[in-house]
């Protein structure tokens, strides 16, 4: 049996002694896109941050990447192994130019120029990181940095929130390309775990599985479009009663 690209095993996460995530279990095989739904404050971003290894989280359980236990690895080591994250609200870093950071991540200068051009970010290479950027620009920059990193696993925290339709189109098509959606499933190497509140991203990426997180727990999982349709109609109120069960009943 193939080793999943990512395996999260009984993961619990606390911040300053307060438990945020409880017994999370999930597996993402190579080449698959999974979607994480859930109301605000349910712990979705915390899960992505814990997988990325950001400091400040007390972690119990295990995280495996390519079969290697990365639970206690620092974030830079995880990034070098092939995990990349696009933050929902990245910090402004005054004085640090986007182009300079890209050069440190990826030494192929012509590649960077081309990627920036494709995301309409050429003038931004000389600008300070996220300083004075619009919502759409910030998201595109996050995607550009991910493309430069070329990770095997993409953690995307609301890549389309606060972005106009034109920018969503641009971002989603870039992600499609990065996730090798033009290839057959067996030939795809990259996977993604994506948080979405708008569901727009589902129109572009053929996601294999969706999860609903409520109050730090994954309450159910299933076909992401079905989950999204239900959430759109009734919100997250039914989640406590096991959304998955209802979806399955409906399908039958």
């Amino acid at each position, binding site marked *: 049996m193939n080793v999943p690209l990512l395996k999260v095993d009984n993961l619990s996460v606390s911040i300053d002694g307060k438990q945020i995530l409880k017994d999370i279990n999930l597996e993402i095989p190579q080449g698959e896109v999974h979607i994480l739904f859930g109301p605000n404050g349910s712990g979705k971003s915390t899960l992505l941050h814990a997988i990325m290894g950001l400091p400040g989280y007390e972690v119990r359980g295990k995280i495996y990447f390519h079969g290697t236990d990365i639970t206690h690895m620092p974030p830079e080591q995880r990034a070098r192994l092939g995990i990349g994250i696009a933050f929902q609200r990245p910090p402004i870093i005054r*004085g*640090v130019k986007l182009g300079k950071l890209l050069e440190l991540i990826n030494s192929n200068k012509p590649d960077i120029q081309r990627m920036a051009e494709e995301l309409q970010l050429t003038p931004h290479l000389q600008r300070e990181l996220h300083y004075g950027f619009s919502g759409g620009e910030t998201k595109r920059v996050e995607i550009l940095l991910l493309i430069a990193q070329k990770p095997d696993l993409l953690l995307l925290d609301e890549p389309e929130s606060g972005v106009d339709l034109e920018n969503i189109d641009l971002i989603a098509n870039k992600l499609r390309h990065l996730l090798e959606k033009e290839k057959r499933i067996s030939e795809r190497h990259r996977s993604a775990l994506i948080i979405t509140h708008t569901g727009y991203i589902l129109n572009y990426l053929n996601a294999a599985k969706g999860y609903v997180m409520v109050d730090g727990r994954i309450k159910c999982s299933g076909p992401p479009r079905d989950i999204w349709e239900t959430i759109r109609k009734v919100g997250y109120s039914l989640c406590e009663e096991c959304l998955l069960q209802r979806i399955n009943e409906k399908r039958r």
Partner: protein
Amino acid sequence: MKKEDSEQLTRVGYDPDKHDRSGSFLMENQSIIESLSLYEGLELLPISEAIKKYKWVEKKICTLVSRDDPYVKAVLNTQPLQGAFIYVRQGYKIRLPLQACMYLKLQTAQRVYNMVVMEPNSELHIITGCTIASYLIKGGHLAITEFWLDDGTRLSYTMIHEWAPEVVVIPRAAASIGRNSVFINNYVALTTTRKVQMAPIAYVAENGTAQFSSIIYARDHSHFDIGARAFLNGANSNAQILSRVITEDGTVIVRGEVVGIAPGTRGHTECNGLILGKGSIRAIPMLEAKIDDTELSHEASIGKLKEEEITYLRARGLDEDTARSLIISGFLSARIENLPTYLQNKIDQTIELTLRKGL
């Protein structure tokens, strides 16, 4: 020139080959090694020769800085007076930078007097490097620089200092800025220095601009007491005093004084400080309005490196040291308005090289 001297001087912006330079001046201890103008309309002489050549030069000496200052007296008591005389004739706009370098190769106190005279509608960019031979750790540098900018002139004066741990540096400078003229004064000091104390003064006439930027990295026991003073004497004149300072076990005092005297004037002083490890930063703004039609403001922020920024860069694959170094060099690399690209690049390069060496 010996290889080690050449390397040391290059670090502070001096190009031994004088490539893309409008002039070159080099003073070693109390001796003038080189005083060369490469551009029509630009005169570059040792001040002692200028005093002999132009009667008005001696009359101007120390009319802008105070003769009561003991350090000014110490320089004036040095015989012969030594330093650079830079004179730009009317209408000449010289875009290539002039390099001037003060080099200390003996464990002594170098005493320098410089004069810059800009005739109407002229332009010049000066890069001044002051440094010490690599085998010395102790010494002194006392300097006076007086600037006369006639109407419609533009002068940028970028000073890069690289001293040693036991060097004491006391520069005194003052500028008379004519109508519709722009004076840009930049100071970069990133290496450990026992003491630096200076606050150049600008007297700004109608529609004139004075712009001071300081970039300081106070390591170890370094003590920097820096800043600037601007007197907005002419209507619609303006001044900005900006400082970016980092302390890592050093002490920094940043003073920014703006006095609004004439109507329609604007002044702003700003200090951004970053504390790494121990050390202290004290920002002292002083605004004085002598008329109601003046707009003066100050702003200061002092803090530590933000963990969120370091984490963000680590998540991109940068180790913690590289992330910190990138943020620190970014913090120091503020854009300086109106500065030619070459000089901005030189400042950025100096910051990067020094940080790479030091962190």
